[in-house]
């Protein structure tokens, strides 16, 4: 199981599609930086099929005022949770 990390918004960048192309059936996806926009209810549909494997970084949601705009399908983790996700994965792949 790999951890994929995405830092771009699906609203303006198509990089999320490259990430989706490379994500295996057990892999997880963590949204960080501008990527957390993808956790918003209107945008989370771009990550269909990742139920239970989709995460977003709390600090990056909070600084953007988006904690209250986060879809319940997304699991919110802080930076310690980010480290934990990297521990649990065999390796990480970053998409930017």
């Amino acid at each position, binding site marked *: 199981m790999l951890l994929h990390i995405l830092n771009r918004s699906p*609203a303006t960048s198509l990089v999320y599609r490259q990430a989706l192309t490379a994500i295996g059936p057990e892999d997880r996806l963590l949204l960080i930086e501008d990527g957390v926009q993808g956790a918003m209810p209107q945008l989370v549909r771009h990550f269909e099929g990742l139920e239970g494997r989709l995460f977003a970084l709390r600090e990056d949601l909070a600084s953007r*005022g988006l904690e209250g705009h986060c879809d319940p399908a997304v699991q919110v983790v802080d930076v310690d949770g980010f480290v934990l996700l990297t521990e649990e994965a065999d390796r990480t792949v970053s998409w930017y």
Partner: protein
Amino acid sequence: MSEESTRENVADLLVILRHGPHGSSWLREGLDAALVAAAFGRQVSLLFMGEAVTALVRGQQAGALGQKGTAATLEMLAMYDIDTLLVEAEALARFGLAEQDLMLPVNRLDAESLPRLPAEHRLVLTF
């Protein structure tokens, strides 16, 4: 501001903002250009396109390392007499943001009126 008055608006500088806060310096540097122009007495319009609409979300905070963000700067716009805050209506819809989610009153601009804007300003800067 109604669409009518938007159409009549003629100003020196249109600054098009297209990035959200915190992810990059684009938003800050675009706002800095707008503030400086206003401080020099120029008429400035701001257009929030795409991701930049997230810059207007209420309740923003400093970043995890203490990065300031841009919310405080946005609150200063009125002091600089920058009161033409135009927002791409389609972008608000795409992000699912309603007026009560925003920290400032804005003028929604539909896709039909948007192309008139660049022609109505002597200088257009995109950030």
